[in-house]
């Protein structure tokens, strides 16, 4: 066991884990942050997407030793005391059903919007191309972002 120092959702945390422990397990087991889901454990479904230094990353693929001194943001860190506007429009537009893919999608979209506050629909599609959803059909997720940024742009 080694102690790792990571900034998680804006807080400095020290956590003990073997170097090859997956970030996903550290988040879920050691830190109690179960918002990030394990859908496949091999980087295909995107349910465990977190931001690593601001970039969307599958937490199931990254060992803890690689994030020493770096910054993680999980779905729990997207909202402050109130819902993030992105989370609000996802509910209003109907971009969520069972919700198992939702945390990863929220994180992927947050990263997109931080990078590009007025993305095209094609860019929104691209940003969640690594997040599988089996319930909603994605369309309302795309629509939610359009409602948020006030664009009605069709696909490029």
């Amino acid at each position: 066991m080694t102690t790792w120092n990571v900034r998680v959702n804006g807080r400095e945390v020290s956590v003990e884990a073997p170097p090859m422990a997956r970030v996903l397990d550290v988040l879920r087991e050691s830190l109690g942050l179960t918002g990030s889901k394990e859908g496949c454990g091999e980087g295909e479904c995107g349910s465990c997407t977190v931001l690593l230094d601001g970039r969307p990353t599958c937490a199931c693929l990254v060992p803890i030793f690689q994030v020493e001194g770096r910054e993680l943001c999980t779905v729990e860190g997207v909202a402050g005391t109130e819902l993030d506007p992105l989370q609000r429009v996802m509910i209003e537009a109907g971009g969520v059903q069972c919700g198992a893919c939702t945390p990863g999608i929220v994180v992927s979209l947050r990263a997109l919007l931080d990078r590009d506050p007025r993305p095209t629909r094609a860019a929104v599609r691209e940003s969640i191309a690594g997040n599988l959803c089996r319930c909603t059909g994605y369309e309302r997720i795309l629509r939610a972002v359009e409602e948020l940024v006030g664009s009605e742009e069709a696909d490029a």
Partner: protein
Amino acid sequence: MSFMQEEKRPGKKKIKTTRVVNGLDVEEEVWVDDLEAPLFKPREECRLLGTRMKRVDGPAKLTGAAEYTSDVRLEGMLYAKVLLCPFGRAKVKIDAAPALASKGCVHARQLVDETKYLGQPVAVVAAATPELAEDALRALVVEYEPLPWVLDRGQALAEGAPEVRSRGNLGRPTEDGDAGEVEAAFAQCAVVVEQEYSVPVQHHVCLETHGTVVDYRGGEDAIVYCSTQSTHGIVGDAAESLGLRKAQVRGIVQHMGGGFGSKFGLERAGTLACEISREQKRPVHLMWNREAEFLTSGNRTGAWQRVKAGANKDGRMLAMSSDVERYGGIGGGSHAGLPYLYSVEKSLRKHASVYMHLDTNCAMRAPGHPQASFAMESVVDELAAGLGMDAVEFRKRNLNSPAHLRQLDRVAELIGWNEHPNRTAPGSVDGFEAVGIGFGCSRWGVGGSPVCQVDVRVMNDGSVTAEVGSQDLGTGTRTYLAAIVAEELGRPLDGVQARLGDSRMGNANGSGGSTTTPSLAPAVQDAARQMRGVLSVAAAEHFGCAPEEVVLDPDGARAPGGKLTWLELCALLPPEGASVRGTWQSDLAVSGVACTQAARVRVDLLTGRVKVEKMVCLQECGRPLNRLALESQIRGAMTQALSYALLEERRVDPQLGIALSADLETYKIAGSLEIPEFVALVDDDDLREGVAGVGEPPVIPGAGAIANAVFNACGVRLRHLPLTPDKVLNAIEERKSS
């Protein structure tokens, strides 16, 4: 109009009341809601029902706060994992001692001596952390002696093939119809099509895998958290595995990450977790990994369908014969039968299952229907093309339900059929790309079950709860549970707290076959109406009027005698509040809903890639409760159908006896890049008073519509799903050279 005829209004009744007019008491008759009749309010009077309501569990799901089974963390909990057999079939010998000696491992054992199907769990371990459980799995010393297997049709039906079951690998066929009559009817046909259509095995791909967390520490009580479609349904199996009585076991299903038919019982993961928990007297967490999800949690039956069908020159289908093989692994397989949905005058059919050493099929969103629909919609389209007849017109001549007839017109209009050039003949394979439109229809029986018991309680501080031991698979059950009560009592949606997913609450059926809504919503409405009666009586006593004269609205209660705020009204209740229990009302459940879909595709004639550009769906559902949820169900179903049409296929290597598509890289499902423009519409011409679920019907016709659209675009008929670019390109080249 006759004066003698008594006027009737559904859900209303006339009462006599006294009013003071110019200082005189005048008796008059007024229409009021019949509080004895548990009907919904008229559509136009509803503030919530029939609108687009935000799901009440939205904030919990969007922030990661919603606790799923896999998120349950308990003091002293063990993590269990299973080892899957990598062979089609094998004898297994496992030395578990090294695993038991590994760090943190407390349980390791062999599950079977000989496997029955590819991927069957052969060992289970439990350890203090997920990583230590993985270590323990690796420490198992496993010897496999591969046994002969049958993993495809050819192997299964070969002479001397190893038997999957004692009665042979070809199940006894079921047959009906009169061969002589059908032959005679074929003789009358102007066009006859004889073809084979196949569909692969499809997986559910729930984003949350199957799994259970058992909280048992010895003693007499256990709580079982399970990702299941049936909160009440798991209790019996859990009790048996734990060695407890049913009344000692409590099932909890707060949030669950998709089921689609695959999660009805406690399932293997659940019984294993219970057995380990019973032995260790510690909580146990056992979730399938994705590989187990693919190999050992059920699937949609594959099928090979030989079909001969004929129509006369007027486009009436006169004859059909079909021979269907179902591929359901070690299970029997399901198929809805041909001629699916359409009326054909004379039909002869034969169905049989072919058994293989593969995981059994199970229910999956409209079990057996998409398979039949794909073949039927294809053959219908081929007959229309053979006659040079408009595909919409041909369908209308062979469908009986008025709902389908009007839906076809509307859907044709919405997809742009009337302006489309290829209405009576397909496009060509010349050029770079081609655009086509295709159609498909479905119908689903729905129907409710009378088991639900819904408790509504109003406390004298104004708080309201509605509870029942049903479950919300993500479909929106929780939201309409609150909304129906809020509507009836005049409360805002957030003024009612909906509670479900606990077997200690009132009875409820499992969520399958689109029956949750027609089973549950009528019972909720019954409870809501009763509670309105209780509150109306309390207000009426206060005002000195008849209970029926009391109106509950967002301001509280009003009656001819005055007004009360909601809090003032509830303060009239006794300290323990008021509670009622609602039960099922058959009048409020719809049986039979029609669905019609159209797809527009663009076929890249150089690469064979099919891009679905637009899908339209018109879906009956009786009275719509929450349009946001209904439309989402419809879009999600169309997406699964698109995925079935273009991408999904369970693949194995029959020679090596191994799985080739047991992960999300090799088993592709539709992602955000594949999604077309969706027009998902609730059919508002369905004016029935009852409600229906729509989980199943919109998943059925999409694949047929897409394949028909490909034909319509460029004249190539693809009869074997999925429509991958290689198949499309081959067909294009074939048409070019013919």
